[in-house]
């Protein structure tokens, strides 16, 4: 059996799904952030395997941008977490129910 493009794409779909699951089912904000990172990494894997497949390096360059965005999101996200922690001393989505829809 040879490794084909579809195997990589399926793998990235699985990772994306796991990330989605994490965001939707966890309450710990740090873990939610990490799940989002998983999702972004799945996207990166898709881009890179597509790049390999079409012998097109542009997709690899796109991954750079995704990495930058991921890093920026984590940085700001953690900053917000710290300021929430200082304010309320909790890290659960549940506890953040002061705002109701």
């Amino acid at each position: 059996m040879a490794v084909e493009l579809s195997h990589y794409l399926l793998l990235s779909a699985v990772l994306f799904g796991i990330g989605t699951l994490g965001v939707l089912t966890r309450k710990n904000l740090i873990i939610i952030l990490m799940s989002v990172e998983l999702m972004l990494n799945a996207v990166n894997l898709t881009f890179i395997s597509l790049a390999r497949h079409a012998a097109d390096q542009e997709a690899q360059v796109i991954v750079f941008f995704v990495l930058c965005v991921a890093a920026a999101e984590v940085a700001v996200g953690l900053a917000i977490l710290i300021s929430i922690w200082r304010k309320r001393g909790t890290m659960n989505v549940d506890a953040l129910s002061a705002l109701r829809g």
Partner: protein
Amino acid sequence: MNLNDVMGVLPELIVILTALIAIIVDVAARERNASASQGVTVLGLLVAGVVAIASPAETAMLMSGQVFNDGFASWFRALFCAIGAMTAVFSLVYLKHRNIRLGEYYSLLAMCVFGMMVMGSAANLLLFFVGLETMSISLYVLVGLRRDDSGSVEGSLKYLVLGAFSSAFLLYGMALIYGGIGSLEYVVIGDALRDSTGIGPMTVTGIGLLLVGFAFKISAVPFHFWSPDVYEGAPTTITAFMSTGAKAAAFVGLIRVFGIALAETNEHWVGVLTVLSIVTMTLGNVSALRQTSVKRMLAYSSIAHAGYLLVGIVAGSKAAFAASGFYLIGYALMNLGAFGVLILLNQRGKGDYSIDSLRGMGTVHPVLGLTMAIFMLSLIGIPPTAGFFGKLFVFSAAIERGHLLLAIIGLLNSAVAAYYYLRVISTMYMAKPEGDVAITEPMGYKVALVISSILIIVLGMFPDQLVAALLKAVP
């Protein structure tokens, strides 16, 4: 890259420069003049806006085909700058009583405007994404700046988590489209779809994921649940900014991506968008009916307005896109104005935006009352206001394309919406004022409000110039 490229993105460069100067000036001159960075921001954004509108708009693309330099881009760049400048004008009064650092605030505001401008002129999904993230990250921070208020930080966190989540969907959609078509450039995608070489299952799924991402960004039902909380938690100036600027930016993207690049595949998504539009406007209005806080009411009403705007995307004609542009410009004027009055009237209240706090304000502060009445009437869509023509153009474009039912539902919705907007007017004019109603009314602030209400009326009487210009500018 040559000089032409640089001149083409001159407005963006001016905005970045403004962002940098604002933060430096704040450090250098805070002791002497607290409003220095505000002045820099307003001035810089206005200059950028004027440059954007004055620079010759050809359809040529800049930066190796990554940036559109068409009239549409110019209009929206100018609109974003104007929204940013207006927000900055409103900010000083608001920030004075709250513990927010001015330099960072204005700097982030300008960077946010930069992100929106990139979104408006991007010719490539990736560049659009970068612009979107620049805007979003600045907004995450701006929303959370009221650090002594737990609603603000929590709103910020909620916004960040869901924003990042939806960005991931957007990205995955982009990746699948890239897999199906081999490019992220709008023009290439459009061409590939016209040749019908690119419409595979992968592209269709990609479009679906893209749609989910966009639905989050424009807070369409059922992806809207974050927005009322975020809008309520955010500093009111930022709420105003988000509900107009961020919405306009997302809609330009929607027009460019779905309205134009993906137009060939519309049989796959027009139905979904139609349902989305109906549900969004109806639920937005019904929820707004129940609110007692004006700020929250405006938040829900902005969801409803996203629903009306989706009608323009569904219609999908040149006239519809020009109509959406007109709508967004009018909406920016009236919604920003409404928030502006609200901020001024509640400047000392600790976030008390209840409708009762407006009792009798129309008689106590005649200028504010009159402008607020105009903003509300325009939000309802009563002629002769810009809001009326925005709705008229959008719905007539929909009827022209055969979406009669959608237009009728939209029109009925605007009748429902009349109730909660009218309540604001009637409270302001037909109830007796209570308690201490003295406020400071800075001159520049008042002038901004008066100018925008005059513009609303002028656009409501003579919309022709603007709509013709927009029609010419639509790509």
